């Protein structure tokens, strides 16, 4: 018997009992749709969290002074030493590593910002032009800190969005002068509003060149160095390089800590990935239930079509062929049911996406493949028994309808 004939015959007998066929397909479709929608939701949640982290800057490695692992009273404290600070030259030395794409040194201080009679305390960030790219920040108006020598102490500043509104209202800020502590700074740009990141409200910041901040606060150390690795794979390399360069410059003493954002991100990624799998697995149970239903209905179909099976045998169909016909029926049923389920699932995901626009809901490919495969697999697996039963019918008894 030809494959096309087998499929045609099977689809003919499916059409022969439309209600039964539709109900079985519905069961299959609901199972597949459940897997698709639930994994889409799980995956959406995972992507949402990952995206949130990525918006802080991708491939970020952070260097901070001191060993954070050390707890209690260390030998340094006993002998009156404090952790050696990280200097601008230390930061610049990092560029020796080829895995490092760019870095931004960071100082943090607090000073009073004033323009005319308006005055308030602000957090002052000292950095370089690279900060914009490293932290994925955006300008609203004007320019960010000028590129060039890291030791340049130009008296320019960039205002956070809220600072600009508080000091200038609707006036033009770029080109104006403000007073920061005991120095005057010219406003060269305003950040666009970007909410909170890394525990600081960027909208309430003032950013000045890092060398200028050292002068302003009369110090020379760095609070952090933000490093961007060339790509995700080189993060580890960057971590090792940064540590070895700084240890070397600090006379062999490991007094810096290097942390990666990736480690945190991966943990979240793993947790939410596992959650998605679990939810998908639960949904897959409904597919197994659909499989049992298929088996049940197929057994009824065999019983109802005993005479037809007897006739096929009399006409010269071996047991194998009868089995294949029932397999083909189950396969067709599961295949059409899966396609309907996928359509239903994608439609459902789309609607959820419309209702919660911030959630990037889209079914992961592996879930789609797994759902379809499970549907086809259970459909065929659960038809093994009915098909065998049909194939083993005694033709004489079957023709007599017994």
């Amino acid at each position, binding site marked *: 018997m*030809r494959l096309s004939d087998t499929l045609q015959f099977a689809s003919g007998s499916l059409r022969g009992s439309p209600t039964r066929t539709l109900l079985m397909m519905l069961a299959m479709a609901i199972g597949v749709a459940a897997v698709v929608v639930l994994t889409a939701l799980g995956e959406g949640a995972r992507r949402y969290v990952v995206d949130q982290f990525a918006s802080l800057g991708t491939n970020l490695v952070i260097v901070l002074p001191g060993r954070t692992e050390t707890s209690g009273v260390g030998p340094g404290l006993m002998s009156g030493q404090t952790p050696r600070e990280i200097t601008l030259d230390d930061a610049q030395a990092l560029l020796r590593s080829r895995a490092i794409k760019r870095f931004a040194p960071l100082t943090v201080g607090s000073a009073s910002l004033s323009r005319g009679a308006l005055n308030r305390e602000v957090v002052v960030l000292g950095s370089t032009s690279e900060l914009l790219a490293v932290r994925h920040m955006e300008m609203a108006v004007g320019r960010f800190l000028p590129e060039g020598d890291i030791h340049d102490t130009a008296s320019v500043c960039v205002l956070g969005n809220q600072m600009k509104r508080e000091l200038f209202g609707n006036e033009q800020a770029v080109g104006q002068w403000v007073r920061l502590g005991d120095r005057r700074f010219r406003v060269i740009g305003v950040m666009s509003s970007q909410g909170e990141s890394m525990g600081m409200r960027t909208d309430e910041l003032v950013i000045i060149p890092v060398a200028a901040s050292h002068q302003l606060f009369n110090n020379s150390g760095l609070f952090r160095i933000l490093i961007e690795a060339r790509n995700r794979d080189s993060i580890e390399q960057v971590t090792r390089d940064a540590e070895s360069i700084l240890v070397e410059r600090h006379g062999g003493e490991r007094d810096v800590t290097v942390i990666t954002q990736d480690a945190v991100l991966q943990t979240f990624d793993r947790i939410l990935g596992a959650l998605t799998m679990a939810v998908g697995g639960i949904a897959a149970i409904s597919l197994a239930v659909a499989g049992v239903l298929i088996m049940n209905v197929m057994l009824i179909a065999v019983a109802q079509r005993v005479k037809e099976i*007897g*006739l096929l*045998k009399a*006409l*010269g*169909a071996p*047991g194998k062929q009868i089995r294949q016909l029932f397999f083909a029926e189950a396969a067709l049923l599961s295949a059409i049911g899966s396609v309907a389920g996928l359509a239903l699932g994608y439609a459902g995901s789309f609607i959820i996406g419309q209702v919660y626009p911030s959630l990037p809901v889209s079914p992961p490919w592996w879930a789609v493949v797994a759902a379809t495969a499970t549907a086809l697999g259970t459909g065929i697996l659960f038809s093994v028994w009915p098909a065998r039963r049909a194939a083993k019918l005694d033709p*004489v008894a079957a023709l007599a309808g017994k």
Partner: protein
Amino acid sequence: MIELQNVCRTFTVGDQEVAALRDIDLSFGAGEYISIMGPSGSGKSTMLNMLGLLDRPSSGTYLLDGGNVTDLNDEQLARVRREKIGFVFQSFHLVPRLTAAQNVELPMILAGIPVEERKERVKVLMRNYGLSDRADHKPDQLSGGQRQRVAIARATVMNPSVLLADEPTGNLDQATGWEVLKLLEGLLEQGITLVLVTHDAEIGARAHRRIHMLDGRILSDEQQAK
């Protein structure tokens, strides 16, 4: 071409052994017209199933065209049925969801014959049996006589050497019954061996060779002088 040697068939009913066929020795040549008669329970249906390879003898040997078919496996048996044996049943056994033409096509589908050839052979047969205008009708839209003609077309579409008919006129009125019988007898001219099981003496008498059965044994085997 058909030879049964010492064929027995016993069924187990409960804890009792019931013999449906006892020591049957029988042989047919090609192109014979045989009727098997006897009261119900005489074993004539079992005999027909045995001849049609739907049933296996409990003991004894069945030779078909010189080959022993007693030991064939399921697949080989199906192949012999497909190629050498045609069945016509009392209750027609048409597949209700298929049209007349599709019912006739069915054995060729099972045999894996290409579509074009199938369509051609179906067309010829439907014309020969006067069913051309009924080709696309479902069985329940056909009269009893038409249904049996479709069934005969289906039984002959693979050009079998033996046609086994089990009470082919049993569900038909007399006029239609004769019509169907004539159709079957017409196949003899093509060299087919026709085996007719009936309890109707008048129909049975038409066969050239008449076998009477009782209690699983052959009571008489008369050859009619032509």
